């Protein structure tokens, strides 16, 4: 491969840029030997958080397994934008079956590899939040409880973006989607609904559960590498902003992911065998408004007259998450 000049930067958010690190500590993406499992030329939207997340996850997993990796993909944006016939962006063995069965298909692949005595080849399953927390949830829980040797990755962009931005079980309260429009007295998605699947995954007491965002790609890669050190069922929930679905600027994907974490709305954590082992502390707390404002899906909260009451409920939600997981170091909350 020809030498490629890398653009290095400091983010100003305590995230270490590659140039500050020893070569061995740099991201897999920063290496010329990266596998480019999801290679260029695909049809993802500009600024797609899912494409970014998948690229880091797969290349890190490829490095961790020395290229002995098979990917199973549920139906969704990632599948559609990567394989418009007869082209494919996948440079690893890749199987797409259906929307709701990714985890079960991955279990089948893992079982086959075990039966063939080839279980040095590892299996990664991937889906969006719809394919994970809603339609694929039964299969996911089955894969977890059997402790099948699969790392399942959910790229959570908080809605059914591929079908035109509808609400999923991972859509946050007050967010406007195509079927939770900003209409009526309670605009946007309802409060008191939805689920946070990482905690449900932990309840299965599987070897490893982690969350990450595309704002901290070192952390994301680290979690993939950690996951690959375990055998059995593992779950990685990656927060991936969707410029199209969220009505956000495509250059704000990483910023929004960072604000989701720094506001306390999205907790970044790790757990082993059902026990929380680590959380990424908030480094510079921001009010939720700073995260919400740049997104048109929350525009109804900031118009004239606006809904400060709803913003306050979302802040309370962030505060509860911060308290629950201890996201602010002692004395700062």
């Amino acid at each position, binding site marked *: 491969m020809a030498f490629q000049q890398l653009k290095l930067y400091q983010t100003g958010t305590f995230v270490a840029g590659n140039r500050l690190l020893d070569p061995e500590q740099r991201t897999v993406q920063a290496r010329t030997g990266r596998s480019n499992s999801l290679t260029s030329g695909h049809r993802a939207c500009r600024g797609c958080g899912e494409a970014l997340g998948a690229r880091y996850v797969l290349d890190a997993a490829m490095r961790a397994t020395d290229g002995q990796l098979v990917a199973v993909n549920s139906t969704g944006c990632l599948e*559609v934008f990567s394989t418009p016939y007869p082209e494919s962006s996948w440079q690893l063995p890749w199987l797409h079956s259906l929307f709701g069965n990714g985890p079960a298909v991955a279990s089948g692949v893992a079982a086959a590899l075990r039966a063939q005595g080839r279980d040095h080849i590892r299996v990664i399953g991937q889906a969006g939040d719809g394919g994970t927390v809603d339609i694929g949830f039964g299969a996911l829980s089955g894969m977890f409880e059997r402790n099948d040797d699969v790392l399942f990755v959910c790229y959570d962009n908080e809605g059914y973006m591929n079908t035109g931005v509808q609400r999923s079980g991972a859509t946050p309260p007050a967010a406007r989607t195509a079927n939770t429009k900003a209409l009526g007295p309670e605009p946007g998605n309802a409060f008191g609904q939805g689920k946070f699947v990482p905690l449900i995954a932990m309840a299965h007491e599987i070897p490893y559960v982690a969350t990450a965002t595309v704002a901290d790609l070192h952390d994301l890669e680290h979690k993939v590498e950690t996951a690959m050190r375990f055998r059995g069922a593992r779950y990685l929930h990656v927060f991936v902003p969707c410029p199209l679905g969220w009505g956000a600027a495509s250059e704000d994907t990483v910023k929004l992911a960072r604000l989701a974490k720094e506001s306390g709305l999205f907790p970044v954590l790790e757990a082993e065998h059902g026990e929380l082992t680590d959380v990424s502390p908030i480094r510079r707390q921001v009010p939720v408004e700073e995260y919400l404002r740049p997104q048109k899906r929350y525009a109804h909260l900031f118009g004239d007259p606006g809904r400060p009451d709803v913003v306050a409920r979302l802040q309370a939600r962030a505060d509860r998450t911060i308290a629950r997981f201890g996201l602010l170091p002692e004395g700062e909350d």
Partner: protein
Amino acid sequence: MPSQIEGSQAVARAVTLCRPQVIAAYPISPQTHIVESLSDRVRTGELAGCEYLMVESEFGAMSACIGASAAGARSYTATSSQGLLFMAEALFNASGLGLPVVMTVANRAIGAPINIWNDHSDSMAMRDSGWVQLYAESNQEAVDLHAQAFRLAETLSVPVMVCMDGFVLTHAFEQVELPSQEQVDDFLCPFVPQQALDPDDPVTIGAMVGPEAFAEVKYLMHAKQVAALDEVPRVAHAFRESFGRPSGGLLKPYRLEDADTVVVTLGSTLGTVEEVVDGLRDDGLRVGALGITCFRPWPLTEVREALGRAARVVVVERAFAVGAGGIVGQNTRDALRGLPAQVYDVVAGLGGRPITRAGVRSLVDDVLGDRLDPTRLHFHDLDHALVQRELERSRHGARPGPHAEHMLRALGTVASGVHDGAPG
């Protein structure tokens, strides 16, 4: 040496001899004895080198088989009824991807009303899923068809379901000749997948295909099914050479030579029909039978050939297309297009109602006596009084309530033999 063995146990033994590498199954009556037995055989090591996945649903079972097959493993599952319908989406996916999964369907009715007994509503509902469908007449044939199914599936890279009547076959103890491991090993070559997930040779399986090539991919699916019309008899012939007994194939003609009336049927009903045919022949009537072993692909030419000289064709089937008519009947009519034969659609044996020799005999007598209207769907053994009573009741009152419960009440406690005794 023949064994006296339950159908499910015999099938589990046959599947074991085929050395599947991945079995994924979810329990549903009357398939349970098959998958329980296979679990035992994996645990004891009789079925070595096999991974058995106890999945969370039939949808998961077929999905795991899809993954396993795509990774190059010989994959098997079994189901029934609601389970088969719960798999529906994955069935079409397995065939669309060209994955040679083999599945036993222990045929059972579809609810509502919920009913665990035998008919063919389940597999018939999935007739257009792109799977080859073979129907076993006996437990011996069920055993034999499994070896043939794996060979057929892997030769053509197409999924195959072996349908056997729930309870009637699955729970019946019959004498069955079980093949030896050597025989099956000789008959089945090791599975060489046409496509496989392999890090040394990465491929994309399951890409999105738009209007530019979708029809072509589907055409190839159809072409594969058409090829199966040649391959099914070839495999049956090879089976006979290896095992020394006839089994499988597309059709089973019985005393058809000069028959002007032919009863067409599938599955275990064929044995009953053949006995009735013998009786009718003894009475000097030119009646024959035609068993459909392979319903998908539909052997149109062979059916036309077999039935072309008949004046009356009576299709007795354990399922129907609600609001339309017979399913096998419609296919048969299609095969006989332009020929003078009159086709009668007869629905029988729904939800486990027995199809008896006397019943089939009286049915044929009705046909021969011109007492059956060939333009209408005929429900064999229908309790017309019960239906009329319920229809009458529904005409009164704004909210007549659930039919099934009212009709059961009208029948009384069936087990006690008290009929028509309960207050309506």
